[in-house]
């Protein structure tokens, strides 16, 4: 009973943290929300009798990856990326397509698998958790890991240098006639 209450509190914190991390416009605040969410996830893993996963969640995600994010943001001083130009609808399309596929597949899996979901299984060794995760829910794990692809595409889009004004290269070509233009 106590464990279930703690689970629901932590789940709510994790969901709220993730939601705020997505909607928050300030990158440092977004990171702090995400770290909160990761922490709650870690404690949920601990409740599920998987202390190793819980500790790795904190060491790897909250302690290493998020710290590096913070370091890069503090070093680079990105200014206000949210005030930049909004993407064209053609650039929205792949993201929409991929997330559509992923959400539909997840929904299909959940609907087809209306089995019992026990919130707090009795002491499960880590071997058993791994077996169930990758044998019974292998497809769902793969789908969730597709998220990394979305992040990659997003990072590529954000990191793409703004295309230079079209007039500049022409002027350079005009300035040096006869020579091969090397860029």
């Amino acid at each position, binding site marked *: 009973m106590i464990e279930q209450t703690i689970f629901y509190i932590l789940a709510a914190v994790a969901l709220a943290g993730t939601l705020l991390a997505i909607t928050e416009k300030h990158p*440092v*605040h977004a990171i702090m929300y995400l770290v909160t969410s990761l922490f709650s996830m870690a404690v949920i893993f601990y409740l599920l009798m998987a*202390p190793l996963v819980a500790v790795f969640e904190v060491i790897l995600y909250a302690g290493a990856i998020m710290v590096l994010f913070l370091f890069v943001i503090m070093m680079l001083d990105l200014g206000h990326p949210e005030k930049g130009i909004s993407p064209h609808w053609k650039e929205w399309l792949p993201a929409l397509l991929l997330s559509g596929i992923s959400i539909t597949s997840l929904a299909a899996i959940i609907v087809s698998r209306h089995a019992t979901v026990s919130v707090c299984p009795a002491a499960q060794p880590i071997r058993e958790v791994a077996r169930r995760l990758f044998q019974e829910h292998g497809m769902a794990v793969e789908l969730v890991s597709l998220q990394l692809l979305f992040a990659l595409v997003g990072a590529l889009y954000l990191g793409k240098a703004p295309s230079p004004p079209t007039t500049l290269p022409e002027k350079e070509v005009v300035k040096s006639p006869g020579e091969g233009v090397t860029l």
Partner: protein
Amino acid sequence: MTAFSLDITLFAIKLALVFFVILTLAAYLVFAERRILAWVQDRKGPNRVGPFGLLQPLADLIKLLTKEDVIPGAADRWLFYLAPAMAAIPAILIFSVIPFGAPLTIFGRNLPLVVADLNVGLLFFLSLSSIAVYGVAIGGWASNSKYALLGGIRGLAQLISYELSMGLSLVPIVMLSRSFNMADIVAAQATIPFIVYQPLAFIIFMLSITAECKRIPFDLPEAEGELVAGFHTEYSGMRFGLFFVGEYINIIVLGGLAATFFLGGWHGPLLPPTVWFSFKTLAVAFFFIWMRGTLPRLRYDQLMHLGWKVLTPLALVNILITGWWLALK
């Protein structure tokens, strides 16, 4: 009284005792540091409040609590409020996995002298020490001051770099004791402490924890000569006090960890286990203070050079040698 409620009561007493001892010890470590530093530098140190100045920590506490809590106008309010707690809480939490004495038996109930006997105790320490970075970084960033930001960024880079060599220097300990559990690690050193087998790992660990708690010669995040006070330049009153006490709690906790991993934990002849543990912990703390009185500060590039090009490769080689030794034994 049922067995269950007896267990709960004993646990609560243990928890309160640990909290009290750690916080008092941290306050008196500040006093000890000031006196020892004064002694090293041929001064007197604080000796006016109470006999031998022993009430100085209390006077400091009253001063810090009654001071005005200044918040810079352009600071990020919430993160500025939270950062000192983010620095101090992980330090206190790490102590929960350190066994500070042999298990006791009270009223027929078994009472292990450790707050939480986790089977991933060593990893729990690594995870919390990686979290402790946020206090420094966020404190420096939220102040919205150039000195504080520089201190925060330095702190981030330094803590990330030295966490690596610290984690790697502990791998041979796990290889020798075959467990992540702190109690098992202490039990494996019942006859011979690991410092005998792993002197190199001990040196790497000591250097890394000195950098982790930002002490001279690795105190670049708060370098007084260049950055005023580094990441806590803009803090005043008890918020500054929390950063400060957090640092000293960190020293005690890391001393306890060095004792647990390398110096045999609470094992020792004649004296009671808890006394041995306190003695080893305070010896490491004294070593930190002694270094502060002796060594100059490293330059930033020297710090990075030492971490990445010397300590990390050495720790990896040490793991390799330990592996060979264990395979051939």
